């Protein structure tokens, strides 16, 4: 049983999705999904613990040996990602039943759980697998279900956003497919471990260079790096609120994982950072993303839009940290990956609670909400402080390591810009605080109450995690640091 954990991680939600369809009753499907997601979370914890103790776990699918068969390969990086995805998924599901009861038609609610579990499968699969083509397959499983989930939003703009995402996402995925094909053409293998050993022999060819460029562009489309972010704001703003919470916390993270995996494990640091001007490119695009995202966020009147733009800015921070190509920088990247999932999960769940009570997330509806929904708004504010990077929250920890990495490289200009970018976050978080706490409620009748417990529980678990991992950084820092070191260590 223990030996089969890597495959169970992926196969349990995959099998559960069609079973959900058979359950027919929404309540049952909901309970079942929570149980499945919990199981996935427990498996991921076991895997992480095992990896930390005894190193890399490999699993051969169907008993076929590695370069021929598909291999699942769990190292510290994957294990961390698996924990992030499955924990956020479980917490979001707790709120899902209440939230979608108002946002999705009754007859479509069961399908929501089916798609949700498929999307979860896709993400876990991308992370768990050690086979380049398998990555593409899981990428499409998660993307196709994501398009459908976004289209479930009750605004007609949700469908349009889903369609735009479909076009962009498919182009991105096909680019990755071309890259994988070119790699296969040169090496005759699809196994990532095997690829990393064979690619250096042919590294000087144009084909490998082209393969890398295709993979990078495809992945950057998926992770919404500025200027390839156009699909993200509308998709996040008009999707059902819980879907936004799930995707904002996990979907872009999975794409960033792919970027790290291909850059460090498959192509190797020396190849990746010398053939392409990756440092300059990602530093500039990351900084541009921080400013474009943050400034756009300031001018939004829809709060879901606002935080969607802030997500683009946060991806910018991760990419800036990545561009330093040092162990400290990569640690900062991974820390922010983990921390940003906690922040955005909490913030978008709080927004889901607001949408549940108010029916929309327009800034104008937030008047006086600090008094009407004290716990939800407090969570939103703490999440916002974490986004800014105030000490005692997780945001501070990742910003701190990011700045350390930038200073270590002597990039003073970038350091100043990152600090300025954080100030922009103060502006957009303050807009919400001002409206929610310092304005009178618009309608005095107290029809707007505190959100139900099914929202408050997951929100405050995440907020507690935000503060806990901001004070006691041993767990997250240790995993991130060891993962970063091993990524640099494996490659020559």
């Amino acid at each position: 049983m223990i030996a089969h954990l890597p495959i169970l991680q992926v196969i349990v939600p995959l099998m559960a999705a069609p079973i959900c369809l058979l359950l027919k009753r929404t309540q049952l499907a909901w309970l079942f999904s929570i149980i499945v997601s919990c199981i996935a979370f427990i498996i991921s914890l076991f895997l992480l613990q095992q990896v930390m103790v005894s190193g890399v776990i490999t699993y051969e699918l169907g008993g076929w040996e590695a370069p021929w068969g598909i291999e699942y390969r769990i190292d510290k990086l994957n294990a961390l990602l698996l924990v992030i995805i499955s924990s956020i998924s479980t917490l979001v599901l707790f709120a899902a039943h209440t939230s979608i009861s108002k946002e999705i038609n009754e007859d479509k609610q069961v399908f929501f759980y089916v798609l949700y579990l498929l999307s979860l499968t896709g993400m876990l699969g991308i992370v768990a697998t050690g086979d380049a083509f398998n990555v593409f397959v899981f990428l499409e499983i998660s993307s196709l279900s994501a398009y459908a989930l976004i289209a479930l939003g009750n605004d007609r703009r949700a469908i349009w956003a889903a369609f735009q995402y479909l076009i962009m996402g498919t182009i991105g995925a096909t680019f990755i497919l071309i890259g994988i094909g070119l790699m296969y053409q040169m090496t005759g293998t699809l196994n990532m471990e095997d690829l990393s050993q064979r690619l250096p022999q042919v590294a000087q060819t144009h084909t490998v260079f082209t393969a890398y460029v295709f993979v990078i562009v495809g992945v950057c489309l998926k992770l919404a790096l500025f200027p390839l972010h156009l699909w993200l704001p509308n998709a996040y703003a008009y999707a059902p609120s819980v879907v936004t919470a799930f995707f904002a916390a996990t979907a872009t993270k999975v794409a960033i994982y792919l970027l790290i995996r291909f850059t460090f494990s498959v192509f190797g640091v020396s190849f990746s950072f010398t053939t392409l001007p990756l440092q300059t490119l990602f530093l500039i695009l990351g900084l541009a993303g921080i400013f474009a995202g943050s400034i756009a966020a300031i001018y939004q009147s829809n709060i879901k839009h606002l935080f969607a733009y802030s997500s683009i800015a946060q991806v910018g921070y991760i990419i800036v940290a990545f561009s330093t190509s040092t162990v400290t920088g990569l640690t900062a990247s991974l820390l922010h990956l983990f921390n940003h999932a906690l922040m955005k999960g909490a913030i978008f769940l709080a927004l889901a609670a607001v949408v549940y009570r108010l029916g929309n997330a327009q800034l104008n509806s937030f008047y006086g909400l600090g008094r009407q929904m004290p716990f939800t708004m407090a969570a939103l504010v703490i999440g916002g402080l974490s986004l800014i990077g105030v000490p005692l929250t997780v945001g501070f920890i990742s910003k701190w390591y990011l700045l350390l990495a930038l200073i270590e490289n002597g990039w003073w200009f970038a350091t100043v810009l990152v600090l300025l970018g954080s100030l922009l976050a103060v502006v957009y978080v303050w807009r919400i605080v001002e409206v929610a706490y310092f304005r009178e409620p618009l309608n005095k009748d107290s029809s707007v109450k505190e959100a139900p417990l099914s929202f408050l529980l997951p929100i405050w678990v995440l907020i507690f995690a935000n503060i806990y991992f901001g004070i006691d950084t041993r767990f997250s820092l240790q995993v991130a640091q060891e993962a970063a070191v091993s990524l640099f260590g494996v490659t020559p």
Partner: protein
Amino acid sequence: MLIGLFNNWIVILLMMIGLYIVIAHGNLIKKIIGLTIFQTSVFIFYISIAKVDGGTAPILTDQITTYSNPLPHVLILTAIVVGISTTALGLALLIRIKESYGSIEEEDIQKQDLLAQNKQDQDTQKSNHEGKKA
């Protein structure tokens, strides 16, 4: 040299045609068509790199000694399935777009969204104004 790589030329030509249609055309059906051509070019790319000169299908008999590589062919079967699902989902979304917007032209849809957005902003401003007065 250039003739020898003619399969790549066809792949690149199809790829560019597909991408161009996706980018340049406002009609959403045409966008889907472009996307399909783009994906198909990648299928052809995979299939053609697996071809071995003089090789046949990988069947185990004594007369045949050279085989084409079957692995990319199998891989691309998966990718074809993915491509079909994407097209199907895209068309399904299109039906709903047509139902709710009454159009499948990108410009039309964006114009309608802009109008709706402006109206919403005005409405909320008005209600705020009234709220403050009260």
